[in-house]
């Protein structure tokens, strides 16, 4: 009797501040509402079909996929390696851990500003190092990291991987910590050590939580706005435009609220699939 009473405020708050706007986003996407208004004329699925036929939208959709898959690939490999070593005790662990979680702890828009300076067109420290130390870059015509379409896409992938990696490491560590020590002992008795243990014992046990880290990572990356907006604002030539930045461009800058809402809603099927997958794995992890 008491339980629903205690849970109700949380549910009501979320319904009001997430449920209503979400419903409203769906409604807006079916209208021709313009900036600043909350209503518009019913246009059915026009916004969705118009967006789909726009080359820039297709580009944004493609970029979102590349961005998400690319940065998550880096994150998963990095987190698997790092967490394997960070679970051990060693001297200076406190400092190492502090350095490793810095990118995640830093406010995302601010951390990205640091990269904006690192990728600067004239004074990039990367170009200086590549040119003056390794001699592989012509200092009079250095690569424009944020000015060339392919390099810019690579840059946003790297920066987002940099930001999410510490989070994935934390989740991986949580997974490793939950593996009971008996498993370790049993593996030792059976003679499984080093890589054998990693592949046949640790990794399989880690799989459910690794998937949770991946699913979170997919949501954070596909829904990211700050990194791309601060670093490239979708440019050059829309080469780093994502669904999020494109919906901002159309919905806020161009004032086509309805179409902007439709563009952002294209993200929803992806997020819904991720949520279902997460439920599935959370349940499985509980049973085992």
């Amino acid at each position, binding site marked *: 009797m008491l*339980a629903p009473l205690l849970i109700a405020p*949380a*549910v009501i708050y979320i319904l009001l501040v997430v449920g209503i706007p979400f419903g409203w986003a769906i409604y807006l996407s079916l209208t021709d509402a313009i900036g600043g208004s909350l209503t518009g004329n019913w246009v059915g699925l026009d916004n969705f079909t118009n967006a789909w036929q726009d080359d820039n939208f297709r580009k944004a959709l493609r970029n979102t996929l590349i961005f998400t898959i690319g940065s998550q690939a880096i994150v998963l490999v990095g987190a698997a390696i790092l967490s394997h070593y960070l679970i051990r005790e060693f001297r200076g662990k406190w400092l190492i851990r502090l350095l490793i979680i810095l990118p995640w702890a830093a406010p995302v828009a*601010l951390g990205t500003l640091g990269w904006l300076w690192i990728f600067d067109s*004239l004074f990039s420290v990367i170009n200086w190092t590549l040119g003056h130390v390794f001699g592989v870059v012509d200092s009079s015509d250095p690569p424009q990291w944020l000015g060339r379409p392919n390099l810019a896409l690579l840059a946003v992938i790297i920066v987002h991987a940099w930001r999410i*990696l510490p989070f994935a490491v*934390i989740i991986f560590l949580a997974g490793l910590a939950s593996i009971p020590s008996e498993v370790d002992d049993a593996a030792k008795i059976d003679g499984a050590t080093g890589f054998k243990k990693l592949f046949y014992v640790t990794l399989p046990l880690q799989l459910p939580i690794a998937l949770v880290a991946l699913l979170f990572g997919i949501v954070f990356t596909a829904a990211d706005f700050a990194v791309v907006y601060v670093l490239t604002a979708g440019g050059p030539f829309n080469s780093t435009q994502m669904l999020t930045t494109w919906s901002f461009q159309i919905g*806020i800058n161009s004032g086509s609220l309805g179409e902007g809402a439709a563009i952002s809603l294209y993200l929803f099927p992806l*997020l819904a699939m991720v949520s279902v997958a997460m439920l599935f794995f959370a349940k499985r992890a509980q049973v085992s």
Partner: protein
Amino acid sequence: MAGRTRGARRGLGTYLVVGPFAILLAFPFYWMLVTMFKEDLDLYNAENVPYVYNPVEWKFWESATTKHVEFLFTDTSYPDWLVNTALVGAAVVLITLVISLPAGYALARLSGSWGQTAGIGIFLVYLIPPTLLFLPLSPLVARLGLQNSLLSLILVYPSITIPFSTWLLMGFFKTIPQELEDAALVDGCSRIKALLRIVFPISLPGILTVVIFAFSLCVNEFIYAFTFISSTENRTISSGVPNELIRGDVFFWQSLMAATLIPSIVLALLYNAFLDRFIKGFTGGAFR
């Protein structure tokens, strides 16, 4: 003897892996630190070694300067943004605790297997990202007369913090033995009294962890802060620094890097201090 050498070798291997990762991940922050004390003539000379302070015209005692950091605090709205961020963070943390504490407790204790499902349900809300909701929310906020007011952020941010905090608190409460509470009930405490006198005090470290993480989520958030608040003095750091400290093509890199590094270091130290508890709470919820 043999075991000791093996242990030492393993230790070295650990450093060889975590060391480069730590350097790569923390490099942008080292870069901010170097940049923030540089003289303009040093910073904007592409021939200078960027990693160190180069004397300007051989006056080595004038190689580094704090004037750009002073500029940030005396000639920009940065101090206002810090205060605004702290205000919003404190208010949101308060709302989050009032709503999440009872919900987390109820989900952990009172409702059995049904509670687990409801817990995951609330947690899934965390997966509906602000990038899906900002388009309908910004006219809604305007309709409520809250545009350009910190109140808009204070009202909306709990929708991000409540799901996550409820989940974490549920994990923490589960680790407190039910017997402890039963004993209090037998001794004549009411359930509410047992909650306030026994359960919450024991969970204080967990509650502090939630405070830290809810607060840092507020500091991190970019798109709401960016679209709801338009005047310079009402901004928070995450939207103020990238939008107001850059004037057209003029970047005050030293001040920008100082503005970025200061909150990042503070948050990272807090994170690091509470990381172990965070990991416990995260796995305590579902991965037991």
